[in-house]
């Protein structure tokens, strides 16, 4: 069973205070560590677990700049056999559907029984690529997947719905699954694996290699246009208790006492 996993490198922003870059269309990425998009890391782990049980190889594919090769190498260090980077300035600024189009062009010629993606990207907040990719490849899909059982020519998956309800589906292979976080425990790469992966070749695919016209991909090929970024309006918000940790905590303890919680 050969599996393609689409991965993306994103800046780590969960714990950081962000700044909007001049021009107003991106954030200041300096000082933010780059990492694999978290759901993609779970997708990679799921692919490695499945191929360990059912044989086959994992190929990781990304669309990104030079720096994103780090994510591909880390994936190979963990056990992916091959890596492809869809690399062309023409792909810059593409929206979710444009990105899915570029990935579909790269994935369609690979040998796969299953394609896994993360169900969501932490940077652009989109939940589009996996489901759109399936449509472009002409194969079925499911997203928000938190359980995968591989059967004969099919997979039984659990999709996480609101309120923790799980929807069980049977899906024929090949298919695309959008993997949700928490489905497994992603492994760490070994030092040996990292050393070996550093020497591995990464296949590069430009728009022309994929039979795509540079004018129909990336920003130019997107149906949506990013007009600008803003910080969300502050709204009413919290009363901030200032001071040193003991001072602020003292104020909070007084409030909790006044309200009868202490």
């Amino acid at each position, binding site marked *: 069973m050969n599996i393609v996993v689409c991965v993306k490198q994103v800046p780590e922003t969960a714990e950081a205070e962000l700044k909007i870059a001049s021009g107003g269309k991106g954030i200041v990425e300096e000082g933010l560590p780059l990492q694999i998009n978290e759901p993609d890391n779970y997708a990679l782990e799921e692919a490695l677990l499945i191929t360990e049980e059912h044989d086959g190889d994992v190929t990781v594919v990304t669309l990104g700049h030079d720096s994103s090769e780090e994510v591909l190498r880390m994936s190979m260090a963990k056990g992916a056999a091959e890596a492809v980077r869809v690399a062309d300035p023409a792909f810059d600024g593409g929206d979710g559907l444009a990105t*899915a189009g570029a990935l579909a062009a790269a994935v369609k010629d690979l040998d796969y029984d299953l394609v896994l993606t993360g169900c969501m990207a932490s940077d652009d907040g989109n939940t589009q690529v996996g489901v759109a990719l399936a449509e472009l490849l002409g194969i079925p899909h499911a997203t928000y997947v938190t359980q995968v059982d591989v059967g004969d020519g099919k997979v039984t998956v659990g999709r996480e719905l609101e309120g923790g309800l799980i929807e069980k589906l049977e899906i024929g292979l090949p298919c695309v699954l959008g993997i949700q976080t928490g489905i497994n425990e992603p492994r760490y790469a070994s030092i040996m694996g990292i050393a070996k992966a550093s020497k591995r070749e990464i296949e590069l695919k430009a728009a022309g290699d994929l039979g795509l016209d540079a004018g129909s991909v990336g920003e130019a090929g997107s149906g949506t246009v990013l007009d600008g970024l803003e910080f*969300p309006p502050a709204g009413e918000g919290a009363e901030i208790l200032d001071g040193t940790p003991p001072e602020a905590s003292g104020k909070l303890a007084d409030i909790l006492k006044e309200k009868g919680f202490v």
Partner: protein
Amino acid sequence: MNEILVLAEHRDGELRDITFEMLGKAASLAETGGTTVTALLLGAGVGEMADGLACYADEVLTVDHGNLANFNSAVYQPVVAEAVKSRGPAAVLVGSTAFGVDLAPSLAVELSAPLASDVIDIAVDGDAFSVTRQIYEGKIDAKVSFRDAPTVLITVRASAFPVELGTKGGSVSEFAATVPDEPAMRRFVEYVEAAVGDVDIAASEVIVAVGRGIKEEENMALVQELAELLGGVVGCSRPIVDAGWLPKDRQVGSSGKTVKPKLYVAVGISGQFQHISGMKAADTIVAINKDPKAPIFSAADYGIVGDLFKVVPALKEKIAEVRG
């Protein structure tokens, strides 16, 4: 401008709130754009739900068929696509829910329509729609518009818009669509309810919830102690469950539990909307986070901006002091 089409979402024979939230917003957009709102309702035995939609839409279109009983995007998509091709709406609104996220991107590809997902606000100017959506885990708003397209697709975040009182009294009619059989390539099997654990956090009056900021499993004791001091239980945001540090039944948020305690203390939780939607109804909300712009502070009544590893121990001492 052509009509605005809203895809109704329901589960177990009940329309979900997102449906009314979208219809309310669509009504105000339609007024600005000089057009009408049509609700598209797919399902099996939908008569009663259709009547329920009539006061929120100018027109309710139903496709009532046994194959549509359970949501399956492989069956729903061709039916929705047929309706969109036949009606030519200016915009199609779909919930940014587990249902909509599994449908909208493939539908957009099939229709060659642009898609903006997880949208929190929509505006219309002349014939052009523009939207606001959140990126970087809710820390930044992105303003997005569309290139010229006859139909744009928008998935709408749950709770982004209020449920308005419907006053429309629209017509209900059947849309004659070809409903495919459920394909072998994607078959619905069953719904499985979430497992029930030993602690029901929804029953507790005080919840101390912990998020990614706690960093290591060994630090969990810190929030456990704070919870005990306040006579409450420990809840959490998704990353803590993903890491396996607490069971799923402790997760607060849209894919976990919705809670309404008297006191909710969020420790090291940035406050993505999935979490906020599960706890915003708490009476008093306190947030402790090191990022002053973390969205959790917009939902909280009181906030402390600081390192939780300094603030929580100090808070424990101060609580002991005021308790005397």
